[in-house]
């Protein structure tokens, strides 16, 4: 038996191909949306992997440093280092900001938008957890101040000068896949510089604070020499960090290390699994729901398009279907023809969509991870959607009266 669906597709191939391309672009968007979600999850995991930590110690009652703000004193790292099972521990700061390129004439104005890059500035201690895991060009930071290592997605190049707050930094190394949970590329600078960038006030604010403190009689008491200077000195510097990254000895249970930190150090500690839960299940939960909604809407739109196209094509063949039924064609042969056409349309669309998504994914500003598993699930979904979409046309075809082929 010849394939009626195949012959019909070949007969009106241009209609099928053009419709398939339209549907394919929609499927491509759907696959890309799934890829955006996968990319967000992968970014979150890359952030955890690249930190090199087994344990994150943060401010009590917070879920920092990525999902919430966290601030703790930088000397807390010493007491954490003293905990049994801890191999290494180091302070880190994270600050998402616009990092500007500097030119001969100075930095472009903040917020001008034409020469700055959204980045997460990471303050770390060289040689300690939090350091970029590997470089693709240049070297690691060797000086105490004003050197930076940047992710290649910042677009910065080796030797380039960048401005973070009030200071200029030289990019000495480039790394790859170092991104925040939001997908912003990272710029690594020495911890001291990062603390200053994050916590140090501007000069006008310092002058105003000094005047305000001096005007406060309880802080500027007559007969207590040195008190005002001590208070002003403590206000002028900030010894806080956002988190302590901890590596435990091999074979040590991270939770066993975290528990005494929580109980006795008045800090919060998260293991790798707990931090992944925070990042994946909480931080990007809303985005994931948003994407899921888009996927559902796109699936409905795709189904509607397939249903509409197959329905109108079937309506255009009512007389032929009546003739086919009159000459003894089984209902299941006619239903199979319509179903195969819907599936053919879906398969053309899927191939176009997969190719389109593969081509345009790299030029997306955020990381789009197209997983083969998602493609397989997408294919199954397309088959199911097309099968469901064809039911309306099949119902119409099965209702066609063979008597309609005979005039009168």
């Amino acid at each position, binding site marked *: 038996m010849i394939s009626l669906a195949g012959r019909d597709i070949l007969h009106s191939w241009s209609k099928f191909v053009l419709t398939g391309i339209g549907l394919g672009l929609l499927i491509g968007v759907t696959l890309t949306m799934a890829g955006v979600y996968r990319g967000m999850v992968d970014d979150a995991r890359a952030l955890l992997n690249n930190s090199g930590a087994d344990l994150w110690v943060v401010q009590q009652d917070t879920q920092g440093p990525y999902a919430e703000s966290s601030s703790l004193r930088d000397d807390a790292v010493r007491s954490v280092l003293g905990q049994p099972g801890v191999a290494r521990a180091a302070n880190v700061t994270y600050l998402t900001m616009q990092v500007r390129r500097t030119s001969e004439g100075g930095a472009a104005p903040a917020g001008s938008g034409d020469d700055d890059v959204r980045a997460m500035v990471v303050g770390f201690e060289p040689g300690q957890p939090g350091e970029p895991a590997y470089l693709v060009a240049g070297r690691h930071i060797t000086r105490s101040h004003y050197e930076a290592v940047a992710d290649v997605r910042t677009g910065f190049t080796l030797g380039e000068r960048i401005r973070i707050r009030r200071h200029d930094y030289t990019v000495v190394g480039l790394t790859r896949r170092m991104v925040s949970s939001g997908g912003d590329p990272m710029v690594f600078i020495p911890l001291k510089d990062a603390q200053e960038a994050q916590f140090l006030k501007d000069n006008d604010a310092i002058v105003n604070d000094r005047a305000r403190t001096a005007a406060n009689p309880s802080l500027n008491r007559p007969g207590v020499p040195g008190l005002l200077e001590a208070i002003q000195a403590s206000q002028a510097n900030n010894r806080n960090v956002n988190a302590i990254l901890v590596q435990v000895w091999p074979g040590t249970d991270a939770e066993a290390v975290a528990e005494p930190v929580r109980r006795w150090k008045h800090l919060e500690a998260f293991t790798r699994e707990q931090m992944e839960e925070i990042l994946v299940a909480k931080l990007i939960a809303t985005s994931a729901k948003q994407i899921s909604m888009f996927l559902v809407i796109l699936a409905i739109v795709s189904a509607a398009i397939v249903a509409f196209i197959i329905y109108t094509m079937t309506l255009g063949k009512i007389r032929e279907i009546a003739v086919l*039924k009159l000459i003894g064609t089984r209902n299941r042969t006619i239903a199979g023809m319509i179903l195969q056409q819907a599936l053919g349309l879906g398969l053309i669309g899927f191939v176009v969509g997969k190719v389109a998504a593969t081509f345009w994914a790299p030029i997306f500003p955020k990381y789009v991870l197209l997983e083969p598993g998602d493609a397989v699930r997408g294919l199954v979904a397309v088959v199911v959607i097309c099968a469901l979409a064809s039911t309306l046309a099949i119902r119409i075809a099965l209702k066609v009266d063979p*008597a309609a082929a*005979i*005039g009168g």
Partner: protein
Amino acid sequence: MGQIGIRIEHLRKRYGEGDTAVDALKDVNMTVAPGEVVGLIGPSGSGKSTLLKCLGAVIEPSGGRMTIGGETIYDDGWKIPDLRALRRDSIGFVFQSPYLIPFLDVTDNVALLPMLAGRSNAEARTRARELLKALDVDHRAGAQPSELSGGEQQRVSIARALANRPPVILADEPTAPLDSERALAVVRILNQMAVQYHTAIIVVTHDEKIIPTFKRLYHIRDGRTHEEVGEGRSL
């Protein structure tokens, strides 16, 4: 008249019930022998199409008896169970417009019926080519229906009707869209095929050009048939 191609006895068909009931066929009686072509004529609304639909096993009569190729297909409320197989194997249809399947080429339009009947593709296509040759359209075997002239399309539709060697062909105004020359050619072909394949053919027509060619005619009026001897003018 020895064998039976078509025999219809006291066939009735009523649409609707009660006060709104319409008797489309009141008492139809017809006999067509194998190899014979008869004309069925009548004014609009006389019941021609209803009779054709009853004979084509697409609507059920209200009473009477129908026999096709010696097999009773309807007898006062009883009907053979597989009407689809009956239409496929025992009845050929030729329509006013050829209604060829536009996405199949000429050969496959004809071969489709034997394929539906379970013949292999090769066997079905061989039979299709034989019929196309007999109808002198074998040179268009690979063409699409849209590439054929009206007369060629009608010949292909006759080949399709003959594809399963049915004992009966029902032709519904087969010459309506054709000029005189082509219309007479189609009737000539139907007569040849009736003899060659031993098929009983009923031609429903209004076409004044072809009515004189029938040796026997059935007039249908107010749901009743009246047999007439036709002129049987030479083709």
